[in-house]
């Protein structure tokens, strides 16, 4: 891209973002909005600039750490430690993605550099928070120092008395841990293993450590992380239907609802049935899978748009059904007429109607006892186990005969039939497998929240899940997980926390200048614009990178036919040099 064009584009993006914030938060002042716009433009420029991959990877991954640190930092500066680790891990993976290495040693060095940049970038955001943002948001130095010593882990143990020392320690810790994780991730990725156990271990390490750091620093991140993970689990299930089998499902939240309601009805005082969670989660998955068959069977001949419309209807009907299956007057009688004869049916309040079902019994384990709502750590690890199993199972499924049948069916149904693939079974299995995982998700969700309401399963849930799948890359599990982390992270962490921060800053400025804060902008709450933001992201993605962030190779080929010659040549060359492929 010629330079002028690049400047115009990035400047435009920066200006748009600045204008957006100015519109929302007039109290921030033009200066702040311009500054924000300039920062965004600078980042875009950096992204497209001819810089070494490791710097770019470090900056991109570090940006997420930095944003996380800034939005949480005024209250919980210790978040920088987790943000640094995660961005280091991300940088290590990203730099390998951009410039693959065969030599683990070289990869480790590259990953360490990228990770250190990401970690330092995150830590810089902490300094920025300490000296600029926290004061602007009305947190005075003493208050901030208190937050600092409370939330930065090891600060007490190391006897770091002064705030500057704690800040420096956090800076060093974030940079160092990011560099180590980046190096480990990049090196592990360069190993020619399948499955790549070291890589899984490197990724698992921060994921498993988060609750402990969270507890030590009292960061309360798990409240947001657990719902994020649940949605990723759902997106993985949806990816089977949409990504692998190519069946566009716009009503996937229905299966989530079915899983959650099954759990609620079978393990709560509501109906007087109180089965163990460990049994109910399987029942919920089975019921959801059967519901998947129920949706799949009548839609067998449908494709594309038609299927999308039917699934959309299904997604609308199911929550309405749950809403209307209960909540009436207790033990009333419903009179139906059957050939003119009145039949009285005792009306049972199955689902609690609009009020939903509350409470739902938590899981129980020996030694741990009932999972407490106040202690999120057992929940977190339980969910990690469920997700780990789901990822393992879906991976196996994709590489199995069944996975190949899905692939063939997605490409050409008739040809698949001619290959001896039972298309009916293949389709039904995609629907029921996809539904099954949302059944697990729904069961966990019900037990975790402890109550369910029909409004938690409306259309926007299906759409957000679809966004996650599309943003990450249809048909690619890693892509879906990343897409899910980004969208859900934005939805449940960055946007609400960022909105809070902006509000604080705006209020602080307003009170400093003595102007009123009431009624400055009806749109002041960013959280109310989240759907708009997702819409914009989707449109931009479709224009710029329709195959998603981390595309499945095949999808990419479908959407960019021009690149084919280059691609296929390099693949062919690879196959020649790699005897295992050619054998």
């Amino acid at each position, binding site marked *: 891209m010629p330079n002028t064009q690049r400047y115009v584009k990035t400047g435009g993006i920066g200006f748009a973002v600045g204008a957006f914030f100015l519109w929302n938060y007039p109290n921030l002042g033009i200066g702040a909005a311009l500054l924000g716009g300039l920062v965004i433009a600078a980042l875009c420029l950096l992204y497209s600039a001819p810089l070494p991959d490791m710097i770019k990877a470090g900056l991109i991954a570090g940006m997420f750490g930095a944003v996380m640190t800034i939005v949480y930092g005024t209250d919980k500066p210790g978040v920088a430690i987790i943000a640094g680790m995660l961005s280091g891990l991300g940088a290590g993976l990203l730099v390998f993605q951009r410039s693959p290495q065969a030599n683990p040693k070289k990869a480790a060095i590259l990953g360490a550099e990228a990770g250190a940049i990401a970690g330092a970038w995150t830590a810089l955001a902490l300094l920025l928070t300490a000296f600029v943002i926290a004061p602007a948001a009305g947190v005075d130095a003493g208050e901030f120092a208190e937050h600092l010593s409370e939330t930065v882990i090891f600060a007490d143990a190391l006897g770091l008395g002064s705030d500057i020392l704690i800040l420096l320690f956090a800076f060093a810790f974030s940079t160092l841990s990011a560099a180590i994780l980046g190096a480990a991730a990049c090196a592990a990725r360069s190993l020619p293993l399948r499955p790549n156990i070291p890589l899984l271990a490197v990724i698992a390490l921060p994921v498993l450590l988060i609750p402990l750091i969270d507890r030590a620093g009292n960061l309360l991140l798990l409240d947001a992380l657990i719902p994020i993970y649940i949605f990723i689990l759902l997106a993985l299930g949806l990816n089977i239907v949409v990504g692998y089998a190519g069946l566009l499902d716009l009503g996937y939240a229905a299966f989530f609802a079915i899983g959650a309601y099954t759990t609620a009805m079978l393990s709560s005082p509501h109906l007087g049935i109180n089965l163990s969670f460990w049994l109910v989660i399987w029942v919920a998955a089975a019921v959801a899978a059967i519901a998947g068959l129920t949706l799949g069977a009548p839609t067998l001949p449908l494709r594309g748009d038609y299927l999308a419309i039917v699934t959309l209807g299904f997604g609308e009907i199911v929550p309405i059904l749950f809403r209307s299956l209960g909540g009436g007057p207790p033990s009333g009688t419903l009179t139906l007429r059957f050939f003119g004869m009145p039949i009285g049916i005792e009306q049972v309040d199955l689902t609690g109607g609009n009020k939903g079902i509350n409470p739902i019994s938590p899981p129980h384990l020996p030694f741990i006892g009932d999972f407490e709502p106040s202690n999120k750590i057992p929940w977190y690890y339980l969910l990690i186990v469920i997700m780990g199993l789901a990822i393992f199972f879906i991976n196996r499924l994709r590489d199995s005969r069944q996975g190949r049948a899905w692939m063939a069916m997605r*490409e050409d149904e008739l040809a698949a039939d001619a*290959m001896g693939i039972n298309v009916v079974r293949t389709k039904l299995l995609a629907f029921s497998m996809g539904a099954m995982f949302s059944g697990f998700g729904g069961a966990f969700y019900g037990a975790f929240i402890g109550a369910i309401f029909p409004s938690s399963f409306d259309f926007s849930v299906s759409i957000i899940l679809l966004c996650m799948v599309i943003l990450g890359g249809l048909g690619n599990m890693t892509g879906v997980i990343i897409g899910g982390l980004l969208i859900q992270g934005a939805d449940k962490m960055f946007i609400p926390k960022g909105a809070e921060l902006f509000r604080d800053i705006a209020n602080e400025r307003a009170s400093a200048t003595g102007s009123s804060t009431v009624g400055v902008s009806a749109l002041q709450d960013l959280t109310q614009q989240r759907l708009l933001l997702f819409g914009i992201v989707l449109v931009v993605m479709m224009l710029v990178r329709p195959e998603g962030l981390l595309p499945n190779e*095949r999808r990419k080929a479908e959407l960019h036919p021009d690149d084919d010659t280059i691609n296929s040549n390099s693949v062919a060359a690879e196959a020649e040099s790699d005897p295992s492929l050619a054998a």
Partner: protein
Amino acid sequence: MLQLQNVHTYYGNIHALKGISLEINQGEIVTLIGSNGAGKSTTLRTISGITPPRTGQVLFEGKPLNSVPAHKIVSQGISQSPEGRRIFANLTVRENLEMGAFTRNNKSEIASDMDRVFELFPRLKERVAQRGGTLSGGEQQMLAIGRALMSRPRLLLLDEPSMGLAPVLVDLIFEIIQNINSQGTTILVVEQNALMALGIAHRAYVLQTGAIVKAGDAATLREDEDVQKAYLGME
């Protein structure tokens, strides 16, 4: 080996096959010729279960195939290279061939059959990792035939293998068809290119608006005046 007895096939109300009877013996190459819309492809689709017959019998090695669903026909020993090739455009050559062996489990047998396909079509071997959709027309045809062979059929159905190919390639494809046949696979080939088809086939049927109007030895039909006029473009 395969018998069609008074087969009637419909597309909704359209009566496409009006009482077809034909027979294919073990080891033969039989060709079905006829003009556009005569029902050649429909006959193949009827055999492979995609458009099952409304009345009449399809017998394969003595067993009726009428109510066997399409996806089970393959494991009975019949496979088809369909009209328009219908290869999986976004799968590689290798993956396409693997799809052809979908119903089979024995990995070493599949591997050796793939080698056999590569022997028949060395061009495909050079392109194992190329996406099917980016192959040339001739290569796609080779892939479609190769993919059909991967199920180890005893009866191979080929729908217009020469369509859209340059004359040199047409010769090559027909040579390979003969080659496959000499290795023991019975073949039913549908062709527009009647001259070539009659050249390699043992026997032939002439189809006209859903009915068989002539049948016999390929060599004899080639000399037949009506056939020459209608399908060989000779006066």
